[in-house]
């Protein structure tokens, strides 16, 4: 019996006794959208897995807007609407407040504990603010685990070119470089997880760290990849979700997500130092093009944030970045005075910035929060450059750009490993553009991507 489960959850588990599938939905004040998510989950379970027993669990962070009532009262679709000949039976629906540090990670923890308690074969987790979820998502997240022997199903979305910038500029290239497996949306938010992997997650002792908050997604993906669980991706179409909390802070998000990546990077240093190149995780689902919500960006404001960073954060960057990287950043900052139009933080400098931050994060444990928060202006500079670069590009061309960035990260892996081990860096630092391009071309022919 797991003592960290809330009493009512434990009692419910004792009544239900066992379930083949558990669908987890973390929530906090999502009354507006969670009903749709629960209906989609129910319909997906009834349509694709009618022969299996299932439970939909809402793990709530203390909502005050009747989110839990919305879960319990969400009505099931009519069988005829779903084109089903048999009556549609709703899965068990449960809603409990979770214990521990407030955040998505703590919510997932309770879902996983319930899945273990109910001896579930598979557990899928989906966000509660999704507007584009369909019953097919449930099938795509569960089927690879149930019928193809995979342990971890990551989502693969069609996203706007300016959506998911932390994923595109940091988490995806870095995770792929480190662990040699290309999972396009490592912090997607929707996952399918096998019973074996759930046991592994629950056995870990780092649930009270940033993992409990925004770090949970990258933590789940990294543990699965680094510990050689079978990982695949499922194409889910577009991800459209409710506007997030306006008060949420970019620096805090960066701190939690990037901090989780860097922390795991230390734990799995022997793993990533052994791995070279990268291979894509298998992709399931029928790919199709979808219309996406437009995203407005203010490049000038981002450049302005970088300028302020250059003016005021020099003393922190100087001790965080390597000497050459710091000089390059300073030159970039100085160039702002000449012309804002020519401003560009290129792939190699960006990759070096991230790797320097990773090393500094390891080197200065007491100043980690401050180091990570000082990354914000540099991140904004990178996003501004990316936006300018891709202004007139279509989705495939943007994907090609991101691919180039990934290869740049991969090129720098040997120098990262050397620095990590305190060895002198062979040929480190920024190479001339032409040389870099040549190296990238070579890598493109060598690495399977």
């Amino acid at each position, binding site marked *: 019996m797991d003592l960290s489960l809330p009493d009512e959850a434990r009692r419910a588990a004792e009544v239900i006794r066992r379930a083949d599938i558990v669908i987890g939905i973390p929530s906090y004040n999502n009354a507006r959208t969670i009903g749709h998510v629960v209906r989609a989950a129910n319909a997906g379970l009834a349509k694709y897995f009618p022969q299996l027993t299932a439970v939909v669990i809402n793990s709530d962070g203390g909502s005050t807007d009747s989110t839990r009532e919305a879960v319990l009262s969400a009505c099931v679709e009519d069988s005829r609407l779903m084109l089903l000949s048999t009556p549609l039976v709703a899965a068990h629906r449960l809603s409990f407040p979770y214990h521990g540090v407030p955040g998505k990670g703590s919510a997932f923890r309770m879902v996983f504990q319930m899945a273990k308690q109910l001896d579930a074969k598979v557990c899928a987790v989906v966000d509660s603010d999704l507007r584009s979820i369909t019953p097919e998502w449930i099938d795509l997240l569960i089927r690879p685990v149930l019928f193809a022997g995979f342990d971890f199903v990551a989502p693969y979305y069609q996203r706007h070119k300016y*959506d998911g910038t932390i994923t595109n500029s940091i988490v995806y290239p870095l995770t792929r470089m480190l662990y040699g497996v290309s999972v396009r949306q490592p912090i997607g938010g929707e996952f399918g997880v096998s019973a074996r992997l759930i046991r592994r997650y629950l056995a870990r002792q780092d649930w009270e760290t940033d993992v409990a908050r925004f770090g949970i997604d990258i933590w789940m993906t990294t543990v699965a990849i680094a510990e050689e669980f079978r990982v695949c991706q499922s194409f889910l179409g577009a991800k459209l979700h409710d506007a997030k909390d306006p008060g949420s*802070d970019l620096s805090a998000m960066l701190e939690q997500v990037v901090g989780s990546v860097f922390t795991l990077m230390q734990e799995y240093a022997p793993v990533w130092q052994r791995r070279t190149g990268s291979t894509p995780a298998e992709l399931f689902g029928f790919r199709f093009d979808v219309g996406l919500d437009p995203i407005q960006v203010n490049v000038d404001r981002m450049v302005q*944030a970088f300028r302020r960073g250059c003016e005021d954060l020099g003393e922190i960057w100087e001790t965080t970045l390597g000497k050459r990287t710091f000089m390059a950043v300073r030159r970039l900052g100085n160039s702002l005075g000449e012309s804002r139009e020519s401003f560009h933080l290129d792939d190699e400098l960006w990759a070096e910035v991230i790797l320097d931050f990773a090393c500094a994060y390891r080197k200065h444990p007491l100043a980690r929060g401050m180091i990570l928060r000082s990354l914000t202006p540099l991140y904004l500079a990178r996003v501004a450059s990316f936006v300018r670069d891709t202004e007139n590009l279509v989705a495939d061309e943007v994907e090609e750009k991101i691919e180039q960035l990934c290869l740049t990260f991969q090129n720098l892996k040997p120098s990262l490993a050397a620095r990590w081990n305190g060895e002198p860096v062979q040929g480190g630092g920024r190479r001339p553009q032409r040389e870099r391009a040549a190296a990238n071309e070579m890598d493109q022919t060598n690495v399977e991507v």
Partner: protein
Amino acid sequence: MIETLKNILEGALERLQQQMTTYLPSFLAALTLIFGAYLIATLARWLIYRIFKGLTVDKFLRQSGIAFLVDPSGGLRATRLAAGTVYWFILLSGVLLGLNVFNTDLTTQIIQSFVFLVPKLFVAGLILLSGTWLGQYLGRGMLVWAVNENFPSPRRLAAVVRILIMFVAVVVAADQLDFARSVFLAAFIIFVGGAVLAGSLAIGLGGRKMQRFFEERTEQTGDSERSLWNHL
């Protein structure tokens, strides 16, 4: 006349001899003690240097981030600092022991003051060191926060935090040493009172400006644009 001169000279020589016999052994003993202390201090410095090097204290401080927070330039070497402290402590103790040989009221008073002062000095030093560390830490935290939140004059804000914390540390350290207690306390009250008054005036007079600043900031990060910040 000659006899008188002779008597004076003899008296002077006699007094010199008497003083020599009284103080010279003490002086030589004091010199020996100081020399001995010097030898022990040198030996202790060498030993501590070796032990700290062996225990890789500097590496630990560097890796734990303590060195970075106290001295971001990376120049702090705890090994050298500890060895130097022990060296000067032993040498100073030797000098005091040497003075004690003379057994005068003055030397006894000096030694007593020193013995009572050492623990206080140690505590005051710790307070100042902690103040420096905390000032640096919070100052930098404030700097990064102010830059990310687009606050005006982030470096000034950070400097204010540093100065405030250092000032508090100095006041507490001075209080610990019983050094100009009332002066520091008065200065502290004036400083804090002044800061509160200045803050109140700033909020009163600049309230409208602040409101405009926050409104502009909110407008700048409108819902459509905010989506970029929130989509991971």
